[in-house]
């Protein structure tokens, strides 16, 4: 899988309440969640974001609660992937399980600036900063994880592997 998009950059410890505030958890409508994505950290995010755009952040992205709503709101808002220094453990799992690609890149938010154009090649494990013209190697996901991400969610992945 390959994506290209513009970067929205944030700092360390972006928590699940900032990604999707608890006041919106009474809905499970994915479109509704997407409308409020990143609202408490970047009020206009859902209006600005374009399909394929990329979130870049520092350490411990997604810390806080175990709500699967957080990665869902990011994914449905059109974001193609999140690149960060590190992710909080349960956010990491939930993101993968709902089919949102996430990438760990050391000092990501120092290497990449707000607005940079980035190309991500998941299969070969390459992040290319097209604006700055530099390339970073990342650990590619193993084949089964790529399949999982490509199928859209853990449940879809299992459905299709059970049918085959």
């Amino acid at each position, binding site marked *: 899988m390959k994506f290209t998009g513009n970067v929205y950059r944030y700092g360390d410890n972006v928590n699940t309440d900032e990604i999707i505030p608890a006041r919106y958890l009474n809905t499970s409508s994915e479109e509704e969640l997407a409308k409020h994505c990143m609202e408490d950290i970047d009020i206009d995010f859902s209006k600005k974001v374009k399909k394929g755009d990329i979130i870049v952040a520092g350490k*411990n992205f997604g*810390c806080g609660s*175990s709500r*699967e709503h957080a990665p869902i709101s990011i994914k449905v808002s059109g974001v193609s992937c999140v690149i960060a220094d*590190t992710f*909080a*453990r*349960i956010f*990491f*799992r*939930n993101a*993968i*399980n*709902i089919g949102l690609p996430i990438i760990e890149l050391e000092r990501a938010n120092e290497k990449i600036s707000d607005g940079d154009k980035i190309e991500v090649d998941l299969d070969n494990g390459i992040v290319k900063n097209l604006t700055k013209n530099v390339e970073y190697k990342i*650990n590619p*996901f*193993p084949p*089964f*994880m790529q399949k*999982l991400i490509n199928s859209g*969610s*853990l*449940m879809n992945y*299992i*459905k299709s*592997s*059970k049918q085959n």
Partner: protein
Amino acid sequence: MGMTITEKILSYHLKRDSVKPGEFIEVNVDIVLANDVTAPIAIKSFKNLGLKDVFDNKKIALVPDHFTPNKDIKSAEQAKILRDFAREYNIVHYYDQGEVGVEHALLPEKGVVVAGDIVIGADSHTCTYGALGAFSTGVGSSDVAAIMATGKVWLKVPETIKFVIKGKLNKWVFAKDIILYIIGKIGVDGALYKSMEFTGDTISSLDMSSRMTICNMAIEAGGKNGIVPPDDITKKYLDERKERDYIFFNSDSDAKYSNVIEIDVNNLEPQIAFPHLPSNTKNISDVKNISLNQVVIGSCTNGRIEDLRIAAKVLEGKKVNKKVRTLIIPATPTIYKKAMEEGLFKIFLDAGAIISPPTCGPCLGGHMGILAKGERALATTNRNFVGRMGHPESEVYLSSPAVAAASAIKGEIASPEDI
């Protein structure tokens, strides 16, 4: 190159010689578990798959322990989803009625989880079973649905921090104080994503109950799993109850660790975690004038028979303070029965304490001992987040059963030395 115990358990399940930290793997799970809060969502996702059967009805554990005996209509509906599912799919390790207890105390006691296992649970304190020399960690409900269907889970191999705990514990200092001290030292994200391996002469002298207390709180430091190298004490525990054969793995002497932290416990004092983080710890000698409305002795952290014996030792012949509601919650029916047979209930009742049936109850603010606005509790549980035991403006402090019992008598946080 050498491997840690966690890396060895994971490689064994992959049928490979080694795994590397940071690597993604898909492994077979020995036991998957969920409770009355997390199982209903997992069951819904599982049903959406339209499969005829679960991957293995002997490898799924369903324990409705959080809001049972059913607290209200909503929780009764949740528990019913488990009951119906367990009957429909003939789930062997389903516990209900007089058989149910707090999941992380119940499964080891029944011999359902053993050394060398990979145990995955939709409950963050699944990390408890590391005390038995198993790899165990908490996940979300989707993960459990997937495991119920396939028997497999994906994991990222964690790096390991080795803790070397040395020295002899003072009279009123216990495993709970060691783990609270560690979390206070490294912080709530001090072991983020990592395996916490607990070693050293202090750990190898601890009984299984104490080791479970320590591994139980690995998640409170952000850890993926906690683990204690299995030894003769583990062997004796397992041989008395195991349902399956177990395998002992141990770290190589040249295993690679991301960090090694040495802790001398010779002078360690009882620890108190102040609101609202388990890492907000203080020595008991620095704690003054914290009056209490409630004391809770129970939970997957400290609700085992060993914990109740310690509490009984402190409470024997004494009365709890009139202002402090003192709740004793044996974690499982077996513990309940033992406590009764050993005469502990008489001590508790004579002291004016309340004995609850086995349940998570107040630990997560569920039922059986909720705090009003402005009230303060000291609990032997593992979390003191905002509103954990009731009103958002109530407070929870954490300690060992000995300090909890002493404080119940005094009416404020106190050391057993002062009783």
